[in-house]
């Protein structure tokens, strides 16, 4: 009897599903090896199919996307009950991902902007989508959104984490194989190498023996040397602070690493560690000079926490209304 697996997406872009589809022929072999009982993006099975399962009947549930709504929360709790192994699939499920940058704004300010300020809006009475609406024919309701984006393991217990935006095919393959062959590592592991990207970087040999940065530049401001270490060119490359396993594809495309593979196991806060390394490398001892040069980074949160804000120590921007929610 083939192991049953489920794929599910929460607040995500669908890229993780695409990554699975991209396994191509292997998808067919995987489909042979396992019994996919739930996969909304590609197959017509419904929630009730999952509810019908006995607890633990699923060998594994692969969940991508961050958590924002009560519906998502219920669904992942359901999957947790049904699955022996839950895998947080991709940067959003593990760390919050780019949609996690929404934690820089409160729910209210986002609604105000999207439905109140954008230039293409019709002149209207400031109507907003309502959770409850009475229409001519009856009553219509919309789900409530939490004020913040949560990572999967901030909601349910997660056994494994598959990094990347989306996870590299190689890692997905290895993970699924390990699952089928029962060779998964100890629970809580991130299913990727536990060393930073520099170790894989084709440009490492071109890195200076003693790296340092005179000033940080932004990718659009310079002709980027296709062979020289990007950090040595003053570009903020998060390769030194980010897990390997992606094959350094962005760097191969002559663009700096933005950190989608997340931190290694020894790091608590991806952005903080990356900031520490970058700031240390800057050649400026005078306070005013250092501050000016650091100011040129322009957007520290978007730069160093692009994929990990909800998983970071601060989790979200501090809002006055957050005052009621202090940790006890």
């Amino acid at each position, binding site marked *: 009897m083939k192991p049953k697996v489920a794929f599910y997406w929460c607040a995500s872009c669908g890229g993780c599903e695409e990554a699975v589809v991209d396994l191509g022929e292997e998808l067919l072999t995987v489909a042979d090896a396992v019994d996919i009982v739930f996969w909304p993006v590609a197959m017509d099975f419904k929630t009730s199919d999952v509810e019908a399962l006995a607890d633990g009947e699923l060998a594994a549930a692969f969940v991508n996307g961050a958590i924002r709504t009560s519906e998502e929360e219920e669904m992942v709790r359901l999957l947790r009950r049904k699955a022996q192994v839950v895998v947080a699939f991709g940067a959003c499920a593990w760390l919050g991902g780019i949609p996690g940058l929404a934690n820089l704004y409160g729910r209210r300010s986002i609604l105000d902007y999207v439905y109140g300020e954008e230039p293409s809006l019709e002149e209207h009475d400031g109507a907003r989508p309502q959770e409850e609406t009475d229409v001519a024919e009856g009553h219509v309701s919309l789900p409530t959104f939490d004020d*913040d984006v949560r990572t999967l393991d901030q*909601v349910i217990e997660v056994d494994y984490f598959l990094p990347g935006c989306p996870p590299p095919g190689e890692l997905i393959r290895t993970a699924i194989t390990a699952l089928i062959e029962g060779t998964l590592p100890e629970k809580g592991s991130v299913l990727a190498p536990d060393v930073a990207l520099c170790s894989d970087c084709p440009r490492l040999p071109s890195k200076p023996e003693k790296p340092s940065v005179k000033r940080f530049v932004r990718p659009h401001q310079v002709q980027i040397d296709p062979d020289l270490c990007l950090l040595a060119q003053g570009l903020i490359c998060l390769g030194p602070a980010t897990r390997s396993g992606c094959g350094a594809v962005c760097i191969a495309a002559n663009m700096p690493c933005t950190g989608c593979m997340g931190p290694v196991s020894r790091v*608590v806060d991806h*952005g*903080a560690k990356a900031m520490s390394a970058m700031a240390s490398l800057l050649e400026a001892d005078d306070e005013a000079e250092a501050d000016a040069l*650091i100011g040129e980074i322009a957007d*520290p949160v978007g730069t160093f926490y692009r994929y990990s804000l909800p998983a970071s*120590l*601060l989790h979200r*921007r501090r809002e006055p209304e957050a005052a009621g929610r202090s940790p006890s």
Partner: protein
Amino acid sequence: MSEPDETFEPRIVAFFCNWCTYTAADLAGISRMTYAPNVRVVRLMCSGRLDPQFVLAALRDGADGVLIGGCHPGDCHYQLGNYNAQRRVLLLKRMLRAMGIEDERVRLEWISAAEGEKVQRVCNEMTEQVRALGPLHLAAVPRREAS
């Protein structure tokens, strides 16, 4: 922020370098300079050991402010540690600003081993500044229910 709550006692974690600021704090003690009890010192050998994660962890664990003390520029026992600390804190503070955390909550001070009274002054100042700002009240990181 809401108006200062006089009954609020700020929690402040301080990271002091062994050779200058920690020694200065000892001097303040030897000189019996009383100051606010709100500051709790974690000793590092050098301010250059400061990892921005420490500052964030302190705030996450309930500190309302963080004080970092190192040797004056040019005086670092390890020559360059304080400059590294300065750059890290400058960048960290810009990030904290973007995350809605007031500047005054994280403070870097150069305090030499001879400046016991500066330890006293800075600890008192910072305690009052943070008291005026009120509790940090970081939004709780969601904790999953035990399953």
